[in-house]
């Protein structure tokens, strides 16, 4: 009984969170952002079925997302045109099945080998489909894309899903179901063997499994869920265009999964939320927000390869044993240095952005962190360089203290372990 409660608790909590969120964050823009987050969570999780769970690095995952969305939108238009009684709630499934179909087709070719060959095939197929979308204009709508009207489909219990709040709940429901389904997948014999194939494909053969079949099935699942995300996107924005098949969209999946953390199930969920949030808010604040993205990604690759969730999990054991306080002093020392370096870097980037444009259109005045500065004068630059430089030097000098603190923590953790 108790274990059943413990098992169900996180899921109930998540369901409650999804249900209650729009009442906590009530603004229209928040609702839009949460809707996009919902679809991106599914997209990022589907990507991690390939990367984190089966060890396949794909550079063309947007193909299944995009094709799923395009098929979904065409089906929606067909349903509207023929006045069929199909409610919009089923459309994501259409997207999913389309994704599955293409996943099977391209998977036959892609999954023969793993490693670099797989990555290169995924890149090639991605570019192939993306380039084809400019040629096949009837299906992909050319430059304008394909549009639809989601409230023109048959209503469900009186709901036509016109208002954003209704779309949010539609997305939230599908998101919840997809998360449950993908989690359940990891707890099956198939899911476990995918992990094995990620770690040691040769050994997998010698326990009776075909790595190729494992990869193929995994690929199909990933494409299926990507297609669901695509279908939800088609419903949410009521438009699909070839950008959603392009390399940038595939890169986004990689960014979200990796920044969140590929070695845990929840990593991509966290990554999708963070990246979507930054994507939407940063683009209002700075014109070079994508640069920050790329730098963040590089930072994660260099210093936190297990992503945000991985970093948090590092502290899990220590937290459970009440040892976190040992880390607090050294963290507190490094934090200001880290903040200074970040602020300095941001200043440098924004000042450079303002000052070094080839075409100076906005003058050199800039407002950073609430302070008006003139990018053409020396002082802001000096401050920026100092902040960044001092911050970096301080981090390097203070880092050994963190190492020592962790040493002390690990000692405690292991001395209490039964040998």
């Amino acid at each position: 009984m108790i274990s059943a409660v413990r098992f169900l608790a996180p899921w109930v909590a998540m369901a409650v969170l999804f249900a209650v969120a729009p009442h906590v964050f009530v603004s229209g823009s928040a609702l839009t952002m949460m809707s996009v987050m919902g679809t991106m969570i599914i997209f990022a999780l589907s990507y991690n079925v390939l990367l984190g769970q089966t060890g396949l690095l794909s550079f063309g995952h947007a193909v299944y997302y995009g094709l799923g969305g395009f098929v979904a939108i065409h089906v929606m238009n067909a349903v509207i045109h023929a006045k069929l009684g199909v409610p919009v709630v089923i459309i994501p499934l259409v997207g999913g099945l389309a994704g599955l179909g293409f996943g099977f087709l391209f998977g036959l070719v892609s999954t023969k080998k793993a490693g670099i060959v797989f990555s290169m095939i995924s890149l090639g197929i991605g570019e192939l489909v993306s380039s084809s979308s400019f040629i096949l204009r009837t299906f992909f709508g050319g430059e304008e894309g394909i549009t639809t009207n989601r409230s023109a489909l048959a209503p469900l219990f009186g709901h036509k899903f016109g208002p954003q709040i209704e779309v949010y709940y539609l997305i939230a429901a599908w998101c919840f179901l997809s998360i449950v389904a993908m989690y359940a997948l990891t707890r099956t014999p198939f899911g476990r063997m995918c992990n094995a194939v990620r770690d040691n494909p040769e050994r997998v053969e010698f326990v009776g499994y075909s790595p190729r079949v494992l990869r193929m099935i995994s690929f199909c699942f990933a494409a299926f869920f990507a297609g669901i995300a695509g279908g939800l996107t088609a419903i949410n924005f009521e438009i699909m265009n070839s950008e959603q098949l392009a390399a940038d969209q595939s890169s986004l999946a990689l960014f979200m999964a990796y920044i969140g953390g590929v070695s845990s199930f929840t990593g991509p969920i966290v990554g999708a939320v963070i990246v979507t949030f930054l994507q939407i808010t940063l683009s209002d604040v700075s014109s070079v927000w994508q640069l920050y993205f790329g730098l963040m990604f590089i930072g994660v690759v260099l210093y936190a390869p297990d992503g945000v969730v991985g970093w948090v999990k590092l502290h899990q054991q220590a937290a459970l044993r009440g040892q976190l306080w040992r880390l607090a002093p050294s963290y507190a020392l490094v934090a200001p240095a880290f903040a200074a370096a970040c602020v300095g870097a941001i200043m440098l980037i924004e000042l450079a952005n303002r000052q070094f444009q080839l075409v100076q259109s906005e003058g050199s005045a800039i407002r950073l962190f609430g302070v008006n500065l003139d990018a053409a004068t020396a002082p802001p630059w000096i401050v920026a360089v100092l902040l960044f430089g001092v911050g970096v030097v301080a981090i390097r000098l203070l880092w050994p203290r963190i190492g020592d603190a962790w040493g002390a923590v690990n000692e405690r953790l292991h001395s209490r372990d039964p040998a």
Partner: protein
Amino acid sequence: MTVALSLVDVHKSFGATKIIRGVSLDIESGERHAIIGPNGAGKSTLFHLTSGRIRPTSGDVLLHGERITGLQPFEINRRGLSRSFQITNIFPKLSVYENLRCATLWSLGHKYAFWRSIDRLRDVRERSQWLMQQIGLTARRDVPAGVLTYAEQRALEIGVTIGGGADVVMLDEPTAGMNNSETEQAVALIRKVTEGKTLVMVEHDMSVVFNLADRISVLVYGQIIATDTPDRIRENAEVREAYLGQVSQQ
């Protein structure tokens, strides 16, 4: 006396270099058969050829009378032949329990099931626990395999090899790198888990060979120069000259 595994005039060349130059060998059901020979004789290559990792240039391999030459390793494994590796080849990020569990899944018929929860499968759980007990690693159940000691990893390697219930077990230098007490334990383990099965073993440690083997084959420069009981091998002049002569008398 039925033949479990049969090598029929097997040749293997890598480019112009001939590694296996015509090996014919019949391994009887239930016997414990050791293959010994100097370094570079081709013992590991023979294992790779039998288990499907590489294809013979010519010749055939038969398992229970059925031709398995050129089949994929997983196809051969499903027909009842399992092997261990000289360099430990397990799943480093998975725990001991999970490693063994992976080894049991196919033979218990679960295949690519993505609709069943693995934690609910009682047969998987029971077999994995039994395997853990057999190899003596129950206390290390949740430790990631990559962190185990060398001897523990070798024991796990054996566990994963027999996990699928194969009746022909091939062990490639199972006691390599072990000290005396570890070797003793490994021999006891091997004897226990291969009871009633056919065992083919490559070994360098002569004490292990003479302790365990019913018959010994001596492989020198890609050819078998003798196949016989341990006592007669010990007395075989050709063998002594080629191999045992360099090792101190047992």
